[in-house]
C-alpha cells in the first residue's frame, strides 16, 4: 500500500528538496485558501531567491507576505499584488521583480502547465502593455495574444479534506487556484484540514485526483479574513 500513501508526518518532510532559486506555485486568492503552514515552513527553512506564482502576495506579516520579510522572494508572478507595505518598498527598491499577469490568463497558464498544453491564445490583454513582445494573431477576425504555460518545481496547495491517496476536495471559494497549482507542480505538496478514511470521498466528487499529489499533510489553520463584511 506504501506506493500510494502520500502522507508525510512533518512540514519539514513536506518541503524536502525545496532549494534556492526554485519556482513555487501557490494556491489561494487573497488570504482565502492559502497554504499558510507550508508558507510558514518556507520562511522557517529560509529558502531564498524564489520565483513565486500566486494571484496575490498575502499581506504584511501573513501568508506570502511572510516571505518578503527575509527577502526570500526574487520574483512574483501575480495579477494583483495588493495592499502590502513591505511589498511596495521592495518593489520600489528594485529588490523584487513582478510579472503582472491578468488573473484569468494566470489561471489558464497554470491549467495549461498541468495539462501539457505549452501555449494557447487568449483575447485578454490584446492592445495593452501585457501583450508587448508577445505574438498576436487573428482568429475569425478577432485579435488574440499567445500565452505560455506555467509549471513549478513545487506547488503548495491548501485543501479541505483528502484521503491518503492524495485525492483532495476544497471548501467553498477556497478552491480558487489550488487545483490548478496542484496539477502544475513537479512536486505537489498539499496541506488539508482533515485526512479521511479511504473510500470516504466519492470518486466523482474528487477535485484534485491523487495522481497530481506527491505529499500530503494535515495541519491547523488560522484562516485570517482580509475584508470582514457583514449585513445587519
Amino acid at each position, binding site marked *: 500500500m506504501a506506493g500510494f500513501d502520500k502522507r508525510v508526518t512533518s512540514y519539514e518532510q513536506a518541503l524536502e528538496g525545496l532549494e534556492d532559486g526554485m519556482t513555487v506555485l501557490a494556491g489561494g486568492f487573497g488570504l482565502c485558501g492559502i497554504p499558510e503552514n507550508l508558507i510558514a515552513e518556507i520562511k522557517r527553512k529560509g529558502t531564498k531567491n524564489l520565483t513565486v506564482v500566486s494571484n496575490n502576495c498575502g499581506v504584511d506579516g501573513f501568508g506570502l507576505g511572510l516571505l518578503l520579510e527575509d527577502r526570500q522572494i526574487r520574483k512574483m508572478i501575480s495579477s494583483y499584488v495588493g495592499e502590502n507595505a513591505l511589498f511596495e518598498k521592495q518593489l520600489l527598491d528594485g529588490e523584487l521583480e513582478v510579472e503582472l499577469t491578468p488573473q484569468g490568463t494566470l489561471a489558464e497558464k497554470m491549467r495549461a502547465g498541468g495539462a501539457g498544453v505549452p501555449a494557447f491564445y487568449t483575447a485578454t490583454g490584446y492592445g495593452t502593455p501585457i501583450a508587448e513582445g508577445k505574438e498576436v494573431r487573428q482568429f475569425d477576425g478577432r485579435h488574440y495574444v499567445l500565452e505560455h504555460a506555467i509549471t513549478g518545481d513545487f506547488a503548495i496547495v491548501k485543501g479541505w479534506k483528502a484521503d491518503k491517496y492524495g485525492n483532495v476536495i476544497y471548501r467553498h471559494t477556497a478552491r480558487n487556484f489550488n487545483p490548478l497549482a496542484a496539477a502544475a507542480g513537479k512536486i505537489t505538496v498539499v496541506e488539508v484540514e482533515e485526512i479521511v478514511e479511504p473510500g470516504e470521498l466519492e470518486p466523482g466528487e474528487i477535485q484534485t485526483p491523487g495522481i497530481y499529489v506527491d505529499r500530503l499533510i494535515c495541519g491547523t489553520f488560522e*484562516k485570517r479574513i482580509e475584508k470582514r463584511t457583514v449585513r445587519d
Partner: protein
Amino acid sequence: MALTREQMAQRVAGELKDGFYVNLGIGIPTLVANYVPVGMEVMLQSENGLLGMGPFPTEDEIDPDMINAGKQTVTARIGASIMDSAEAFAMIRGGHIDLTVLGAFQVDVLGNIASWMVPGKLIKGMGGAMDLVAGAENIIVTMTHASKDGESKLLQRCTLPLTGAGCIKRILTDLAYLEIDQGAFVLKERAPGVSVGEIVEKTAGELVVPDHVPEMRFA
C-alpha cells in the same frame, strides 16, 4: 445635478434583464446589486470562483472560505455554484456572462478602456479586469465624467495604459449615458438637470449630440 453613486447604480440596473448572469466590479458597480428591479432575478458572478453570490453574511454566517473577488466575506444564494479560478474565467473568456459593469479611469471613442494603472504611481495589478473586458459581450463602464480637477475621462484616445482595446460600447457617467458608435461618443441620456452644454464641455473625445437628448428617469 450630477448623479450620486446610488443613482448611477440605479440607472445601470435599468439595463439588467431577468435571467442575466452579471459580473459587477468593485465600487459603484457593486451597488448595482441593490437596485435589481422587483420581480427580476439576476445571478452575480465573482471571478474568484462563485456564480450566484448572495448578500454579505450575518456575524454567525461569516466563513473565511467564502469570499468574493473583492475579498469580502459573502454568502452563496440558492442556485449558486462554485468552481476553480480557471473555470470561473473560462466562463468569462468564453462569453457566457451577459453583462459586466466596471469602473475606469478613461474611455475613448474607439472603445478602448484604461482602468488599472497610472504610471508613476505604484502598480497594484489588473486582477481580473483585462479578462473581463476581453471576455464579456456586453460591458457598461461607470465613472465620473471628469476627474476632480475637471479633466474629461471621455477622450479621443486614452492616455493611460489600456486594460482592453475596442471593447467598450456603453458608458454611464454622473452626467450622462453614452454609447460608442463609429468612432464617436453618442449622447443618449443626460442626468436630470444637467445641460447638454455641460456634457459637451466635459467630453474631450468626439461627441455626437442628437436633436433630442432625454433626461434619465428614476422611479
